[in-house]
């Protein structure tokens, strides 16, 4: 008996250490990117060397198309990408949590949500972002955020609704409903607290998706505008000089690649064992 308990505890401790280990790279990278602008040795918009200069001297990673320091722009260029992605992930998760829980309690709402997800499936997210960002010229960053949220919510709602359905069917929810509790009380106090693990996993996955979308919007030049330092924008701007100073393109590419992969690894570590299958189909 005690041996079994001890074994179980050991397994659980090891699992927790695994989660920490796999979440660490993402947290470190995010910390560096957030602190980056303060660590940068130069100003982001002042030339310090020749255009596409090779690494050396003032600029350890060389110069970009205007001779600005690549290292400085690399350090400065991640904060907004990560901030915007986090905001998108929070908004999508919150909206999906509410809509999904309501959908599980009120099947009519659930059906509407399901149908809109079917429709949005026909619209590639990248085109959706272009459409909204271009039809709303003054929107800037908010247009990208709005588009990313609109494109993300339907899929996220499905996951929450799926996880909420068994909870909504349990006796105590029915008892509360019969007891005259209102819908919002059922959603916020009864259903959602039971979905913490699913919501945390969903948040991780939506962060991965948001990094992809926000970076792609930046690359297509509908997000941040020059002379802002942004990893995706840097790749686009410096592609022409890839032969002269590959670091101007390679460094931001590696940064985005590492961010996407480490966040993805953290997200899959957070997925609860019980809900793993449901989330894997995402």
């Amino acid at each position, binding site marked *: 008996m005690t041996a079994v308990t001890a074994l179980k505890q050991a397994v659980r401790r090891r699992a927790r250490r695994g989660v920490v280990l796999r979440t660490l790279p993402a947290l470190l990278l995010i910390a560096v990117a957030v602190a980056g602008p303060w660590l940068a040795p130069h100003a982001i918009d002042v030339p310090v060397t020749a255009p596409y200069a090779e690494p050396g001297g003032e600029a350890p990673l060389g110069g970009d198309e205007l001779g600005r320091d690549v290292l400085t722009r690399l350090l400065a260029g991640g904060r907004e990408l990560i901030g915007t992605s986090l905001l998108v992930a929070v908004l999508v998760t919150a909206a999906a949590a509410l809509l999904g829980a309501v959908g599980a309690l009120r099947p009519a709402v659930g059906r509407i949500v399901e*149908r809109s997800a079917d429709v949005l499936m026909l*619209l590639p997210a990248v085109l959706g972002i272009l459409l*909204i960002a271009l039809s709303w010229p003054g929107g800037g960053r908010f247009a990208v955020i709005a588009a990313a949220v609109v494109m993300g919510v339907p*899929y996220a709602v499905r996951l929450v609704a799926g996880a909420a359905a068994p909870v909504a069917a349990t006796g105590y929810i029915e008892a509360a409903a019969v007891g005259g509790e209102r819908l919002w009380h059922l959603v916020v106090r009864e259903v959602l607290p039971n979905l913490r693990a699913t919501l945390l996993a969903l948040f991780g996955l939506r962060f*991965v998706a948001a990094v992809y979308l926000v970076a*792609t919007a930046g*690359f*297509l030049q509908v997000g941040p505008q020059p002379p802002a330092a942004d990893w995706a924008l840097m790749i686009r701007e410096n592609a022409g000089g*890839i032969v002269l100073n590959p670091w101007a393109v390679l460094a931001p*590419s590696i940064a985005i690649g590492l961010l996407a992969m480490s966040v993805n690894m953290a997200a899959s570590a957070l997925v609860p064992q019980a809900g793993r299958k449901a989330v894997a189909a995402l």
Partner: protein
Amino acid sequence: MAGSLSGTATRPGTGPAGGEDLRPARPVLSWVLRLGGLLARRALLLAVLLATVFAAVELLPGDAANATSERGESAADLAQRRELLGLDRPVLTRFTDWMTGLPTGDLGTSARGESVAELLSRPFPNTLLLGGLALLATLGVSLALGCWAALKPGGKADRAVSATATGILALPEFVVAVALVLVFALWTDWLPAVTLTDADGSPASWQMLVLPVLALSIPQIGWNTRIVRAALADEATAPHVETAVIDGLPRHRILTHHLLPGAMPTIAAGIATSTGMLLGGAVVVETIFNYPGIGSVLAGAVTDRDSPVIAGVVAVTGAVITGVLLLADLVRTWASGGRI
């Protein structure tokens, strides 16, 4: 990526009452009816999407005439161009015009006054070629990798394939493209980094397609390998598979005869979902490789803030995706023995 990092597999059952109908009478008629139902459902979803797209372009601030205005242009000039583009007519009239024009191939007028259909007629086949090849590559490679991993569950290959697939599925296409260009074009000089075109506007040689197809399909391969692997693992718990294992059938025969047929609908749904991602990603990849597809048209539209062109591209893309989803529906029907 919102699309594909999310919604796969969990599409709702199509049509009422699944396969409860066991009467053998007039199977052809009922099959035709069900096929018609599928078609109608998909067509309706597409129509709703198109209406939504039109509404998004309309309701958000800024219109095509404003977007292309030059500095110092007078209000009268602006009004004149608005009239020329037909933007002064009531919204409802323009909506019916746009929607009724779509089936006849009329996609409306760009902000510069060109026909959107004409603007897309040359580059779109190139994008379809790129996307189609990438879809084939995705299907082939992810099936092979998924099956290879499933042959020895928990083995070295399984763990390596699953970890790699998870690692690459979140990479944006343009990051993959940069890595490919550096390695295969600049450092080894094996493949061209840019696409040159023939007189008719198509890529000049097949080598020029290799890198764009790779850049496009690598993240999707990561994605679909996981789906194939998960679908096979699901199927492995079925009783008929256990029987086959106990009967001592060789692994590869169990895979091809017992696992794959059952996993097919899930795999088809996953691949179909990737179509949208591939067409969206094509826009990005084409800009990098200078590929003569809709990506270049869209890049121009981004500079001009030309939303009618984007709406046209969305319309055509939506139609293509609808077609692929319909195909996946049919695979599911066929795999489940003629039931829809």
